């Protein structure tokens, strides 16, 4: 049975074992099809998601607001931007770069595991889609546990695959289960290869389920930032930075939680904060934020009150905020770690110089993911080097944080190699 037809009820260990056995039985045929055929169909799948008129894309746009809490407008904008670079050609290039056979005196052959257990997390559809596509690309069937905050995307992927290539769809089994069910967890994590995304605590817990010989590709808690050269920031930069915050309501690892501001004339930081607030207010009309639960709203309310209280205590802190909790801009002059309430709550930290910037970025190790760079002109390479030194896996322009290329080295690691067995096959010589 493919994911298309599976029930939504939580599965038992026995049911997971059965699903694993079923997809494992497809493994040999999946591998025998060859990479080019697999990549063609998976490329078609990605093109479906890129096409606003496709059924898969329409399904995502219509079903995810209820499943994830994003507003339809924000979801549409995020999907449009996020899938745009993920072309069939880009997938082929990724495969070619990481695992395609190459060499002359010897050949490298690759093979995927008999099956890969994929643990999805969060509520953003793109990483979920890619997490299912990647093992299939290397010929490994997928046992997939949907995210608790998105039980829909995996099913839409399976449905779309079923329309493109029913056999590929049969290589995907969606197995929702209760994470507290140890037997079910044991069955799921007994896969020869495991790919998972989660908090550091979740990933540490998953490590404990895995044996020494299981392959694993694990993605941990990450945050992103922007570094803004106030001397060279334009109005359009501010518009794009606001978009980086607003898309996915700041809930992705590529969502910026803090902007580090350097340079600029006196008062430039306040001007920037005001301009950003204006843009976030405008975006709230065009791309409204999703509803949030009371606990998240409490954090925002408290962090706003905290900023006001610190200002009252004479500290250089200023607050720009919407009526409700829809967006918040707090301008700080200290890089001290503070809570990140998310849901369009951005801290701007005005730093005196590049030494302070270096210290501020250093504090984000080992959690730094993406950095949007604004300005810097001839010093750009120098700042990029600092970002990379502190573990950034991606440096991009403002407005592009939510549009990573398909071959983005998420968590500083290759996408396919970690789940691929490689063999050197030497060519016989006469």
């Amino acid at each position, binding site marked *: 049975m493919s994911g298309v037809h599976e029930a939504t009820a939580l599965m038992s260990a026995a049911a997971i074992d059965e699903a694993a056995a079923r997809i494992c039985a497809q493994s040999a045929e999946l591998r025998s099809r060859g990479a080019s055929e697999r990549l063609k169909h998976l490329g078609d799948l990605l093109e479906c998601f890129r096409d606003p008129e496709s059924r898969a894309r329409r399904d995502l746009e219509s079903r995810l607001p209820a499943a994830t809490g994003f507003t339809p407008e924000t979801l549409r904008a995020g999907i449009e931007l996020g899938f745009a670079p993920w072309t069939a050609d880009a997938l082929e290039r990724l495969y070619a770069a990481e695992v395609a056979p190459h060499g002359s005196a010897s050949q490298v052959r690759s093979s995927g595991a008999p099956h890969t257990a994929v643990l999805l997390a969060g509520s953003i559809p793109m990483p979920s889609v890619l997490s299912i596509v990647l093992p299939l690309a290397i010929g490994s069937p997928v046992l997939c546990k949907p995210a608790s905050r998105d039980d829909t995307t995996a099913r839409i992927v399976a449905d779309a695959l079923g329309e493109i290539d029913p056999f590929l769809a049969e290589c995907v089994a969606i197995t929702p289960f209760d994470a507290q069910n140890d037997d079910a967890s044991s069955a799921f994590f007994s896969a020869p290869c495991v790919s998972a995304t989660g908090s550091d*605590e979740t990933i540490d817990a998953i490590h404990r389920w895995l044996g020494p010989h299981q392959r694993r590709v694990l993605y941990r808690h990450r945050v992103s930032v922007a570094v803004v050269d106030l001397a060279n920031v334009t109005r359009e930069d501010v518009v794009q930075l606001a978009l980086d915050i607003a898309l996915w309501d700041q809930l992705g690892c590529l969502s910026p939680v803090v902007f580090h501001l350097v340079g600029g004339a006196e008062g430039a930081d306040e001007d920037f904060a005001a301009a950003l607030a204006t843009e976030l207010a405008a975006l709230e009309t065009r791309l409204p934020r999703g509803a949030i639960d*009371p*606990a*998240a*709203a*409490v*954090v*925002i*309310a*408290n*962090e706003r*009150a*905290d900023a*006001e*209280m*610190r*200002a*009252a*205590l*004479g*500290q250089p802190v200023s607050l720009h905020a919407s009526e*409700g*909790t829809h967006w918040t801009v707090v301008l700080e002059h200290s890089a*001290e*770690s503070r*809570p*990140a*309430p*998310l849901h369009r709550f951005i801290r701007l930290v005005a730093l005196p110089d590049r030494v302070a910037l270096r210290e501020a970025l250093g504090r984000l190790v080992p959690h730094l993911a993406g950095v949007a760079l604004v300005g810097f002109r001839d010093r750009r390479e120098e700042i990029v080097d600092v970002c990379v030194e502190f573990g950034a896996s991606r440096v991009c322009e403002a407005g592009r944080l939510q549009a990573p290329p398909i071959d983005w080295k998420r968590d500083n690691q290759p996408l396919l190699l970690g789940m691929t067995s490689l063999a050197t096959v030497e060519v016989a010589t006469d």
Partner: protein
Amino acid sequence: MTGKHHQSRSAIEAELLDWMCEPVWADDAARFETLALRLFAFQFEHCDAYARYCAARDATPRNVSRWFEIPPVPTSAFKAGALTCFDAAGTVKTFHTSGTTTSKRGALHLDTLALYEASLLPNIRRFVFPEVDCGAWPTMSMRVLAPDPMDAPDSSLSHMFGVALEAFAGPASGYDVRDGVLESDALIDRLKSTDEPLALCGTAFAFVHLLEALDGKAHREGEIALPGGSRIMETGGFKGRSREVPQGELYESLSKRLGIPDHHIVNQYGMTELGSQFYDNVLFDDYNGKEGRPRQKVAPPWTRIRLLDPETGERAREGEAGIVVIHDLANTGSIAALQTADLGRWVDRASGGFEVLGRAQGAEARGCSIAADERWQEAHR
């Protein structure tokens, strides 16, 4: 502080002390309102930062006419600076909030402990030792699963236990945490050998450590049945730290392993920044024949709880969770109106009974429970 203002605070405190010492807790709304407004005026005038904070909200003693219009400060503000209404030289005690090694700790500075202790004693007596109010005080001993206040002078929790222990605890009372380590073997031996009821008081974390120690011993020694009338006072959640045990599960385990019925396990909701605490009704109800009320926290008459919709800042709708805002008149020297990072819900709106649903996810982890646990971890390292 001018003589006039000093008099003003003294007068407020004198009235509060009288109120706290009254044997019957009467919900006197007019008395609360009057004192709250006078205290707000005093604090507005003597804490510049608070005055600026209130003024930014257009709330001053001139235009605030009801107690619930008094702006609350976030508890996190106690990390940012000294929120006091007296000269720093007058500080006689500073309590610190718990925190990780990388985060700042909040501080409550006090220039007198009189009101602080006057508030805590009738409260703990009423809800943890209700026999006292019934006139039948048994010489019950307290075992405290927290450090001695001499070892943790900046811990408000240890101070509270110290005051209570000195005021009305029996001869076998004492502390079971030494150098940051729960002396579980000695405590378990004591629990096994006692033939008098005991009051076990400590953090949720401490009780988890005790249960773990009991698990280790259970295979050899079986479970403990403490004498009837024994009770537990547990304070502090898990605050986002590891080894969290849901309250229901914790109480079930404690009941089973120690032979203490659920309605003899009292949770206390308190925080370093507050002078008063809020206890569960269960033991009080049991001793006063009020069976059947659901578990809820009771606010002493000199405090008020508000639950606010975090989106609007208005009163949370009936049945919905809201930010817990506390107006505690015992906080005369700092700020009386505090906005916590906790979510709460009314259990009995009419009587003011509420429950705390927990800390909002994403808020900083803090609390007395953590301080104790970190000390354990450090000791184990």
